[in-house]
């Protein structure tokens, strides 16, 4: 048995709420190597997502992710808008018209999200971006598909946290931080960090 539309809504709501908690940390990380707006932008976007989720009227898990995507795209304003928007949009497409999300579908959705982020931002692993968190997350998810959604997302979140931590010594090759060149080394990438935070919240909220 997988996650229903209500479960998915609750998980996305939990992810949206956790952004508020991490807003200041993300602002601080982005101030070090970016323009300091990542926490603020994500907070604005996910606050709008919460309002949309309150409206309800979703006919399946995919429609929850699709509304999340279009809301983020319209409200975030920085690079995170198109990137997370594309991630949620591709994930929605991967879910199709399924009424429940199982481990395999969850892993497929993550893989589709990664593919979308790479296509949109043209970053590769090692560029010090959210791709460094999402790539190991997809690999971990794909190796746990038979254990249910919660196990898949927990494995993905663990791997994403490790992946995010691995960005510290890297020199940024994409995004605003790449303007800093060598000086970007020694800092945690805010995009990789927010990806790990979101995946952790989704995993904790998944009940099955």
């Amino acid at each position, binding site marked *: 048995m997988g996650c229903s539309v209500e479960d998915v809504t609750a998980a996305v709501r939990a992810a949206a709420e956790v952004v508020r908690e991490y807003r200041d940390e993300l602002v601080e990380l982005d101030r070090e190597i970016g323009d300091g*707006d990542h926490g603020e932008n994500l907070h604005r976007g996910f606050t709008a997502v919460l309002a949309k989720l309150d409206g309800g009227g979703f006919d399946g898990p995919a429609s929850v992710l699709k509304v999340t995507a279009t809301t983020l795209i319209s409200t975030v304003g920085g690079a995170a808008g198109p990137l997370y*928007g594309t991630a949620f949009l591709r994930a929605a497409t991967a879910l199709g018209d399924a009424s429940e999300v199982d481990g395999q579908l969850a892993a497929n959705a993550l893989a589709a999200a990664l593919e979308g982020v790479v296509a949109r931002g043209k970053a590769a692993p090692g560029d010090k971006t959210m791709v460094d968190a999402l790539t190991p997350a997809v690999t971990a998810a794909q190796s746990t598909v038979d254990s249910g959604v919660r196990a898949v997302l927990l494995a993905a979140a663990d791997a994403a946290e490790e992946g995010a931590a691995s960005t510290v010594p890297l020199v940024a090759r994409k995004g605003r931080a790449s303007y800093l060149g060598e000086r970007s080394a020694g800092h945690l990438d805010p995009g990789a960090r927010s990806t790990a935070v979101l995946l952790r919240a989704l995993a904790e909220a998944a009940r099955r």
Partner: protein
Amino acid sequence: MRVGLVIVSHSAALAAGVAELAAQMAPDVRIMPAGGTADGGLGTDFDGVSAALERADSGAGVVLLYDLGSAQMTAELAVESLTTPIRAIVADAPLVEGAVAAAVCAQGGADLDAVGSAAAMAHAFVQGEAFDEMELDRHVYGEGDGLLERAVVLRNELGLHARPAALTARAVAELDAEVSIRCGDQEVDAHSVLALMGLGARGGDELLVRAVGREARHAIDTLAELLESGFGE
């Protein structure tokens, strides 16, 4: 029906300024600024870009130009998310030069791909590369091919700066002729506003206008008259 432009920028003022500048050289082209976030801050507004895209289209398609990182992503996403059958391309080009080159090209009635290329070619001009030199070789085009030349003297003090260069490119845009302008030892395509500006031709300079093709005579006469008119300056 001309190709339209959308100027995607993090700043409303920057988008409006670029659109204003390009519009001066291309009065009949729809150039829509889409800058800043919906609440007036710095950033890119997906809905604003999508709306500008719809408004810029008159049926011939739209070229989008952008300033920095996320503006490119927002522009690409807007094109992918189109629900109406508008043909649109996101041009990888320096914003100001690309917008000017694309606008002048669109004003001349060029199709979507040509306008996109005009914008993309602006890279080379910004980097000081290839002036798109276009020597109309006497050995290739003999008298029999109708290679025409006429020497003219630039009358306005500032010479071929942006506005006169745009007027020059527009004057030959719809003519069936290859046209070049030589200044000193440089010869460039008269259809390219950036190449013309790159000549650095000043008032009093003697230019050689050269043309070949069915409407070469018309092209030569038109340009000679225009260049010697002083562009109303």
